[in-house]
């Protein structure tokens, strides 16, 4: 039988549980197997790669198919050829990164000289940002440099970020800021 390590663990786990309860002579098995089924019956299983350091460890994510649709569990993926199921302290706490009361969940705005944040909508935020980008770009756009060479660039806006984005997001981000004419484009790799 050709089984992966994870299937092996699942199979042997189930067998061991069966042997353990059968030895007691009465029916604890339904409770036990119900507990073991939780992840797969009520959870959608997906894989991920840890978002902290660049070892690239694999993890298995279980998301509830019911109720709030939130995370049930994240654990190291035993079938991943790099980490083989292991995770460090940070990777093992991935669930707490996602299901965290401190997360920012609404766009916020701080007006000039204000002492507080104000909750705002996405529509309003993106409109306002687009407007400011255009105003600043139009006012600071340089067609030519001091030597008279064509440079077509925006000197009034700078950008930093981000190695925390996916490859595809990084690509569209740099395409956006370069099309806007930014030359001050930097991120984590520099520091």
């Amino acid at each position: 039988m050709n089984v992966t390590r994870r299937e092996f663990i699942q199979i042997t786990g189930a067998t061991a549980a069966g042997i353990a309860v059968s030895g007691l002579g009465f029916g604890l098995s339904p409770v036990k197997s119900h507990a073991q089924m939780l992840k797969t019956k009520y959870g959608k299983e997906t894989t991920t790669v840890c978002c902290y350091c660049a070892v690239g460890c694999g993890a298995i994510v279980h998301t509830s198919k019911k109720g709030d649709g939130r995370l049930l569990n994240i654990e190291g993926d035993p079938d991943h050829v790099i980490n083989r199921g292991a995770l460090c302290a940070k990777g093992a706490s991935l669930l707490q990164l996602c299901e965290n009361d401190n997360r920012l969940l609404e766009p916020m705005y701080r007006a000039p000289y204000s002492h507080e944040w104000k909750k705002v909508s996405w529509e309003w935020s993106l409109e306002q940002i687009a407007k400011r980008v255009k105003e600043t770009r139009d006012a600071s756009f340089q067609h030519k440099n001091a030597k008279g060479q064509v440079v077509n660039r925006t000197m009034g806006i700078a950008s930093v970020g981000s190695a925390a984005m996916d490859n595809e997001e990084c690509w569209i981000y740099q395409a956006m800021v370069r099309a806007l004419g930014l030359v001050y484009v930097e991120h984590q790799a520099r520091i």
Partner: protein
Amino acid sequence: MTNHWCDIANSDCILIMGSNAAANHPISFKYVTEAMKRGATLINVDPRFTQSSAKADIYAPLRTGTDIAFLGGMVKYILDNDLYNKEYVANYTNAPFLVNKDFKFKDGVFSGYTKMTDNTVLGKYDKSKWAFQMDENGVPKMDRSLKDSHCVLKLLKKHYSRYNTKLVSKITGTPEASLLEIYKIYSATGKTGKAGTSMYAMGWTQHTVGVQNIRTMAIIQLLLGNMGVAGGGINALRGESNVQGSTDHCLLWHIWPGYLKTPRASNNTLAAYLKKWTPKSNDPLSANWWQNYPKYMVSLLKSYFGDNAVLANDFGYDWMPKVDEGTDYSWLTLFDEMFKGAFKGFFAWGQNPACSSSNANKVRRAMANVDWMVNVNIFDNETGSFWRGPGMNPSTIKTEVFMLPCCVSVEKEGSITNSGRWMQWRYMGPKPLGNSLSDGDIIMELMKKIKELYHEGGAFPEPIMNLKWDYMTDGLYDPHKVAKEINGYFQKDVTIKGKFFKKGTLVPSFAYLQDDGTTSSANWLYCNSYTEKGPKAANKDTQDAPNNIGLYPGFGWCWPVNRRIIYNRASVDLKGQPWDKEHWVIKWTGSKWIGDVPDGGWPPLQNADGTPNPKSKYPFIMRKHGHGQIFGPGLNDGPFPEHYEPLECPVEKNYMNPKQKMSPVAPVYGTEADPHVYREGVCDPRFPLVGTTYRVCEHWQTGLMTRPQPWLLELQPQVFVEMSEELGKLKGITNGERVLVSSPRGTLECTAIVTKRFKPFNIGGNIVHEVGVPWHFGWRWPESGTEDAANLLTPPTGDPNTRIPETKAFMCNVSKI
């Protein structure tokens, strides 16, 4: 990494220096441990006895910022004792190249030096003084017998003749016996069939000699024949899950996706640009892979502008921004300009510069000088909330801040690239929490809105209006559409290399990219990563390749073209047979290569009978001349690494170069927010302690993605300063006491941790103490009101090539509160 994580298991000797892999890349130790079980030796060199030291066979201390002295001594040891791999060095490296007779090194500087006083940088070099001698065909002159007095090997020997163990020990504080022991054991990997590897991180890069730290190790690896082989290489342990990918896609001022050059103002047409940046080699044995540059650039422009990019408009080349020659736009300069009021707008997207930047106080003050700022993050951070941070008065700060919530990685789909260049696909688990959105959705929506505004006109709308922006499906960002664009498409029905390709299909590899607009590819390095079946990054085949060295070619995908060990054509002898028969990477069967994807399919340099094969190519195909560079004439700070002190150091003079204390070409910033204590011949008694920064296992980077988590915060709740028992005694500081750490830039309240892990150094007969502060903290979380960032202390300088800030070395003091 030239190699990858699983490959560390193949090593015979592992040098962990400039990193603390056991704490900061813990899973890497799976492979370090596996190698050790096979009999490999683990060496760790670090200012502090770390978790990696605890696992090591040999540990040696060294004073922060003296790695070149340490490694330069190893170069001398290898050469003095004839321990280098002669066949490898003579045939695969530039050791036999003859250097221009103008090349000299005197009084701590190389020939061609001009001191500068009106600029951020201390000086500059005329690199033409370091050029190679060329023959009548324009090919570098070589002496493969390595006897010519101007050949690189002879110059190398002369340069490092000064690096004797007595002097090295005086500079580094490492006992001479430890130096000799480590030199001996590591050099033994020069034996044919043996492999040594280097695991480094920011402990090497964050210095005014950062690039040259790594260059010194690269020289050692080339001398010992450790490049291209299994269990060898130069392995940067990168710290962010996708910092490899974000670098490949070039979110950096100086490069465009796939490491293409950002156009300079003088590259006024696409033709002028391509002429300037496409290297030419006259050596028929040099693959000079970058000769394909025009294909990659034109394919990228086709991805930027789609059908709007045509030959008649130079594929939209004019629409993209150009930078001025000789001007720097990097991180430190960016915040210097911001401090001086140069910007009205600022994006801090998925990053926390208020804590991560060297001299963070300057950054925080600089942000008060912009009119508007966009801060995208998972948590409210010290950057978005800078206006209400320590010492700030919101009533006087004009900056408008838009703080946008992005979702976490498990709430979206897409790929990331690990340190070993493996691209892996991630899937969406739960939906984004609350009203958070993926970065992809925010970027797509924002640019859509900007495009709408430019419909009504504005300054130079062409690049904005012509930018291809069709990466959505049903109104949502679609990572697959971008991933396919990154791979690239055929733009029309075309036959290339005898194969027919239909318009709109995916390009199978960068060998098929064209410079006439026939193909698009948003990043040539990633061409081959997506097929009609889907992203190869999603592959999950756990079978190893037949050579059984942990390549796992069917697991994820790796650039370039799934080659797991780069420079692998240097892992074989001239006839194509592996140096290491047990852990072979590739081998020549007589008609083809087997094993890993070879670095080019050309036959070996020699036929089976020992005659040269004119169809072959040298193994270092990305170098113009095809050879590994022991002599590096392209760098800003010299062709050979040289020991210079950090900007702030505990010695009055550089013992190696009494007339030149720090790098003569380093940038040093000079606003009133950049105080520092550099002077030749003088130390500042106010700051007698060497300071450094480091990480702990339980937190990550500025801590923004770990400090708000209860488990991790409980494990590591506070910023601390670690010091030796000797220093604690001297200062009357006991373990657990709150103390103040101060540098010329700022002060930081910390909990003192007095340990045996730091020991005082003996530097030239003087006792020098070093302390360390983890850089994971900030005032926003936990909300104790006393925690803040270690980077409040760090200096306003960086590497002359990369301008990575010198956050690993500065001078400071510690006092009781």
